[in-house]
């Protein structure tokens, strides 16, 4: 009996010893120093799958030594919906961190509940950062009733997508780059039925797309927006003074929808477009499945993304084309706005911590902070070539800022990047492709995309979103019209718009107008 009791005790002790780390406070919290100020930061990771900065990241010690700050980092979940849940739960539990990234919709709710601190006094304490990150638009983005409740940094690069067309297919078929919707249709038919790749099989299509609806996007999504641009109705909103409103309620939307349906009916669009996900779509163009698409600059031209296409089609290649021009002379790749990432401070933050955060952010925008957070340590994670950080020449390529082990040290780069020349040149270097020896540059492609025709809708992402049911009705219906499940004719379309209004479409437009007028968004 004693032996058994002894065994039980030993097992319990072992279990307790093993369990200790499971119940213990995380290592980062232990051993708090009395001097430095603790700042907890929930950040949006540059690459969530790459892991956080390691515990021995040099940034921690620099920030501690120079700024007297103990920085504790938490990467927010990768999806925005999960981020919202985490922030909402933390706010309800009075557990928000000192500084956190937050989506505008959730941020608005936090402001209404008085859970975030005003930041107007911080701008003057961060002159360098304010000059590169917080311009008038940025402040307007987070200002409510004259008070700024968040720090809005520039978000993703705008106008970074464009219309690409297979030049080798055009040449083989003796065609020139199309300009109008009619010319595009003719080329798409030729790409579909005239065996442009010469393999003797009927296995190519004119246009490739997939349903991609990001935040504040409705309808058929951005991949088909050039066709709506041709009819003057790209994106969700028209933000002009003369013709403000929801594009879907405008007569031209019917014409645009009819054109897209004619593409589907003619069989010139890859029939998988309704089931494709982003990866499938990208795998498809790399396999030579279609000849025209709207694609993002880096997804098309960055080294690793272009490599499979280059290997598969060393003699092939895309060129950037102007978006198709419609019957009234309209043309647009799509719409663009100015995207911002909001970082907010919890309402109960002390003045001392607020000052420390201003110090931290100002340092991040200094040369030292900008390069350390954006690229890591010179000579370890990058080298400088003409003032531009490059991955070449580092002792261990694994630790280069583009390498698997180097990427974690640049996870906070979205806190310092502002789409400036240095970071874009570094991010998109010119290179020679491995198979065909072509010179490629995702930056040149970006500049080309940005020079094409776009429609500005600055501030459209601050307009009220539709209700969930209305959004579903909208998107499901247009897809049904395109695929023939609903008959697309003027009478049916008018009935549908009336139904849309009845379900809240008109009220949504009115609410949008009120906000747009109030915030001076109409041009």
């Amino acid at each position, binding site marked *: 009996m004693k032996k058994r009791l002894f065994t039980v005790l030993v097992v319990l002790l072992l279990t307790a010893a093993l369990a200790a780390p499971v119940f213990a406070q995380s290592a980062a919290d232990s051993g708090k120093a009395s001097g430095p100020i603790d700042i907890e930061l929930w950040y949006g990771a540059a690459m969530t*799958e790459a892991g956080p900065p390691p*515990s021995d990241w040099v940034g921690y010690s620099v920030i501690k030594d120079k700024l007297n700050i103990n920085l504790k980092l938490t990467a927010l979940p990768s999806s925005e919906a999960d981020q919202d849940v985490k922030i909402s739960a933390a706010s*309800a539990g009075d*557990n928000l961190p000192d500084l956190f990234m937050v989506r505008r919709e959730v941020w608005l709710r936090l402001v209404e509940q008085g859970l975030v601190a005003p930041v107007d006094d911080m701008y003057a304490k961060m002159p360098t950062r304010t000059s590169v990150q917080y311009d008038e638009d940025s402040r307007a983005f987070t200002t409510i009733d004259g008070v700024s409740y968040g720090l809005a940094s520039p978000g993703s690069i705008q106008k970074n997508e464009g219309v690409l067309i297979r030049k080798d297919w055009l040449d083989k078929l003796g065609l020139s780059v199309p300009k109008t919707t009619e010319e595009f249709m003719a080329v798409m038919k030729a790409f579909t039925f005239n065996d442009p790749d010469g393999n003797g099989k009927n296995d190519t299509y004119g246009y490739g797309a997939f349903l991609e609806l990001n935040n504040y996007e409705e309808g058929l999504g951005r991949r088909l927006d050039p066709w709506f641009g041709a009819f003057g109705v790209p994106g969700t909103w028209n933000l002009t003074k003369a013709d403000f409103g929801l594009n879907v309620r405008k007569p031209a939307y019917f014409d645009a929808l009819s054109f897209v349906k004619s593409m589907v009916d003619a069989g010139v669009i890859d029939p998988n477009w309704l089931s494709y996900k982003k*990866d499938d779509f990208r795998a498809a163009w790399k396999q030579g499945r279609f000849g025209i698409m709207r694609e993002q600059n*880096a997804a098309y031209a960055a080294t690793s993304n272009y490599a499979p296409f280059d290997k598969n089609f060393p003699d092939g290649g895309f060129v950037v084309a102007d978006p198709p021009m419609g019957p009234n002379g309209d043309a647009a790749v799509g719409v663009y706005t100015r995207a911002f990432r909001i970082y907010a401070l919890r309402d109960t933050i002390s003045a001392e911590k607020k000052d420390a955060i201003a110090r931290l952010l100002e340092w991040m925008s200094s040369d030292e902070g900008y390069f350390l957070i954006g690229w890591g340590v010179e000579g370890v994670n990058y080298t400088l070539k003409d003032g531009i950080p490059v991955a070449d020449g580092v002792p261990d390529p694994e630790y280069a800022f583009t390498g698997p082990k180097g990427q974690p040290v640049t996870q906070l780069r979205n806190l310092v990047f502002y789409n400036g020349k240095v970071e874009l040149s570094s991010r998109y270097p010119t290179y020679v492709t491995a198979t065909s020896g072509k010179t490629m540059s995702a930056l040149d492609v970006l500049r080309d995309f940005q020079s094409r025709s776009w429609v500005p809708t600055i501030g459209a992402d601050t307009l009220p979103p539709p209700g969930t049911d209305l959004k579903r009705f909208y998107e499901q219906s247009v897809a049904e019209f395109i695929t023939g499940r609903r008959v697309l004719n003027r009478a049916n379309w008018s009935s549908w718009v009336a139904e849309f209004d009845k379900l809240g479409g008109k009220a949504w437009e009115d609410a949008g107008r009120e906000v747009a007028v109030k915030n001076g968004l109409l041009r």
Partner: protein
Amino acid sequence: MKVKTSPIRLTASDRLFYSLINIFLVMLFFVIAVPLWSTVTLSFRPNDFIGTNFEGMFLAPWKWSNAAYKALLGNNGFIIAFANSLKIIFFGVATALFFTIPLAYSLSIKTLPGRAVLVIIILIPHMFDVGIIPSFLMVKNLGLIDKLAAVFLPTAVSTYNVLIMKGFFEGIPVELKESARIDGASELYLLMRIIIPLSKPIILTIGLFYGVTFWNDFFHPMLYLNSNHLMPLPILLRNILIASGMNEFVEVNAFGEAPVQSIKAASVFLAAIPMIIAYPFIQKYFSKGTLLGSIKG
């Protein structure tokens, strides 16, 4: 002398019935096997493969590439997340069984004073979920935020599992318990020395239920854990699966040169392996445990 046995003669309707069953099972096999095979072959697909997903499923094994697995297993973040998941499943299952077995046993004793009231008290939160915010506040007030225990402690007792186990315990002959009590055994002794040894099927079955739940849990770690070094596999898996950065924002993806889709498929497959390994060992107890538990009220 051998006894001659004549085979059972099947009628035409029997044969039709068995044929339909077999056809159904074959179809079921394909419904399960095709996506699994598709994921496995996708995870081994080389970067230079040209073809559709369907063609990829028939790619010869000698053309497969293990780049995705090499990249994942060589990634420190993956190893840490895997270890965290193992910790959660180990302590989670141990904690869950530690609470579930005594609770189910207590409720199985028909003479327990206030038994009906206790059952109702346990059933109410099962039927009416308290929601995220109260749960978050409770975890916070218990001081469990940013501790692995927050992932499994609040959900350590599943009412559903308690009821199944209670049903199993009720099926153990009363005479066995009575004779032990007559011999002077306490309830704790009875539970430890008689009930638990007789309940291996249900304990393993319920342990598997808990194990699968903890292994797959994404939501609680996302909500309660802040330190990156505590994040379990489902968090990393989700990051990999929905990461848009792989295509658009970097020149080389975080896992080296392996194709993005292969990385995603390999991470799904690697995450499923522990369950795939564990299931056959527990399978023989599985139907016995659940069936015996389910027929008792």
